[in-house]
């Protein structure tokens, strides 16, 4: 199978990989460039745990063809913190017990950070809408919604990556 070269920025740094035809972005991020923060939960677009940002917009990386990201910016949870300083969303998720098993957390953080970029002062309904594509089996969602509200208050819209 012919491999295709793909070049993109991941959390601000240049990446160049060869991808298979039909290979999905989740696989390329995890096994191609070793960013293990996006997770596999279903591979069919139903759980949201593979959510990453492409040019600032949330996308399901399991359903994104890797070859389509050539020349684009990809952001993942690996790029949220600034050094050892946590992003306000990360701090709020910790303080608010919004991560139990933690498996949905990277996808939730990505969906939430896209929301705060767009809308620094979201309502509860805005938050519910923004994470409606992300399944959490542990928390019952309330702690996650509250953490995102708290992060917004704490200035969660700061730019990163």
């Amino acid at each position: 199978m012919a491999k295709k070269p793909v070049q993109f920025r991941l959390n601000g740094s240049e990446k160049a990989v060869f991808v298979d035809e039909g290979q999905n972005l989740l696989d390329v991020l995890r096994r191609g460039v070793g960013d293990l923060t996006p997770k596999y939960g279903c591979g069919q677009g139903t759980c949201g745990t593979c959510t990453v940002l492409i040019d600032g917009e949330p996308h399901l990386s399991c359903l994104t063809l890797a070859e389509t990201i050539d020349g684009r910016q990809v952001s993942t949870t690996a790029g949220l913190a600034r050094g050892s300083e946590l992003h306000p969303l990360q701090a709020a998720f910790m303080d608010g017990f919004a991560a139990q098993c933690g498996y949905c957390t990277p996808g939730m953080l990505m969906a939430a950070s896209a929301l705060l970029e767009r809308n620094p002062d979201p309502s509860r309904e805005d938050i519910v809408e923004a994470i409606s594509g992300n399944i959490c089996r542990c928390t019952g969602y309330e702690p996650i919604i509250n953490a995102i509200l708290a992060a917004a208050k704490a200035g969660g819209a700061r730019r990163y990556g």
Partner: protein
Amino acid sequence: MSIEFRKEYFADERDDNLNEVGKPTQRQDALGHVTGRSPYFDDHLFDGLLHIRCVRSPHHHARIRRIDTSEAERMPGVVRIITGKDVPHNLNTLLSLLDFGLDDEPLLSDKKVAYKGEPVAAVVAETERAARDAVAKVRVDWEELPAVFDVEDAVKPGAPVVNEVYPKNLFVYHGRYDHQKLRYGDVEAGFRQADRIIEGRYQMSPIEQAPTETCGAIAAPETNDRYVVYTSTQALFFSLDTTSKLLKTPSNRLHFIGGTVGGGFGGKVDSLHEPMAVLGTMLTGRPCKYIFDREEEMQVGAPRGAERWYLKDGVMNDGRIVARKFVGYFDSGAYTRLSSYAIIKGVGHLPGPYTIPNVYADVYCVFTNRTPATAMRGFGITGVDFAIEAHMDKVAHEVGLDPIELRILNAYRDGDMKAHRRLAKNTALIECCQVAAEKAKWPLSQAASQASSLRDGGGERGRLPAHTATDQNGLVSGFTAQSYAKKSRATQPSATPPPQMARHESAPVTPRVEQPRPQPVQPASAPPPPPAATEQRHTRFSSISGLRRR
């Protein structure tokens, strides 16, 4: 109600000089979770990783005439195809590790499948896609068999035999009975004494745990002829020992690493992935990953099993329940996994948090051609609690009592004798009811709002019944009652030959086991005598198997 309530309630039993209890404490893994650095099993990269996918039965019940892997073997990227004959000891039951139950489930079936999705072969390939393509090319010649899906149909004479280790489709308890029994007092006498009889039938569906991370494991060769295994298991030592047993490999050659589980809820104890991944690595010399995709997780992954319950209560017109009889059927699916244990747990819980002087239960662990069932959050208790509480509402309705008042009236209290012959302590049903009523602004009578778990228990209520009616219903023969552990010891993966199905057609029933069935005990004065039989001072009660042994 706040934490203070409990502190107050158990004041004489607890040391409140604690630094952590009662205060929110950060999870030790929270930082890893929010930074995406927590190491789930699949977060380990290996060069040359191979992918395993299984060929699964499209039938609910079928004999395997032939498995033809020749075309699949020639597919690009295929490294190896594994079938049952490659598994060193291809028969297991999870609880054999806990001295309970007979080996009844192969890792890869080669004779018969008993549920849709049961694996019969595994393809090991360079990519997941190559594995999928090759799976589609494995030809299996099936002979379809009649299937049974209903627990009560499955125990009728002439029903298809789902699980050949248990030909009546019933798990055998203690080598003696086709069900787990509870006998306490005399329910028939209680029914005669009662003003009315109230019956109900309750059915619960199977429930999928649906963890966000699907079940899986990665195995890789390690130094010193060992294998390292990264796994999503919730039960690391179950998985380690099961792998050791199935592969006849000493556990000191298996280096298991787990602990970071992407949601489990009970669905990650079955230890199906670890042995397969290690076997793939043994046969290919390369790292192997075996993971359920989401469809497999939902369809093949073991759910909480369905339960059917029949309840019959003898009730006085004032609402006191004087006798309660249960007949329960757990749908274990095709194999035992953990259902037999769930029943032991459930029967210990009967008749729920109530003091009822006559209790009877026959609970069957039934094999059907459905997906095997396993653990899930309180399994063994939740299903029957649903039945009990639905029935309490029905009783309240029929005798014209407020449902909360009925519960308080019948609630167990400290010092009461439970049907499993232990004295109740730290009971709090009454207080729970009161708090629930208060929160719901539900008016209670003065008597109910002043009731207390600490008062009016014990005394007469703390005594064993003067007479317990026993019977030998459901006695089976052909199963040995001796400790199952002895057999599994013989299956240790040392030099001993692999044992066959541990069922002995003519083995005598050893009477030592189950012998101290509590007989009518004449109560002395309070406090009542300890409920357990005391003849065997040196034996220890195994709460899992119900076996007494040294």
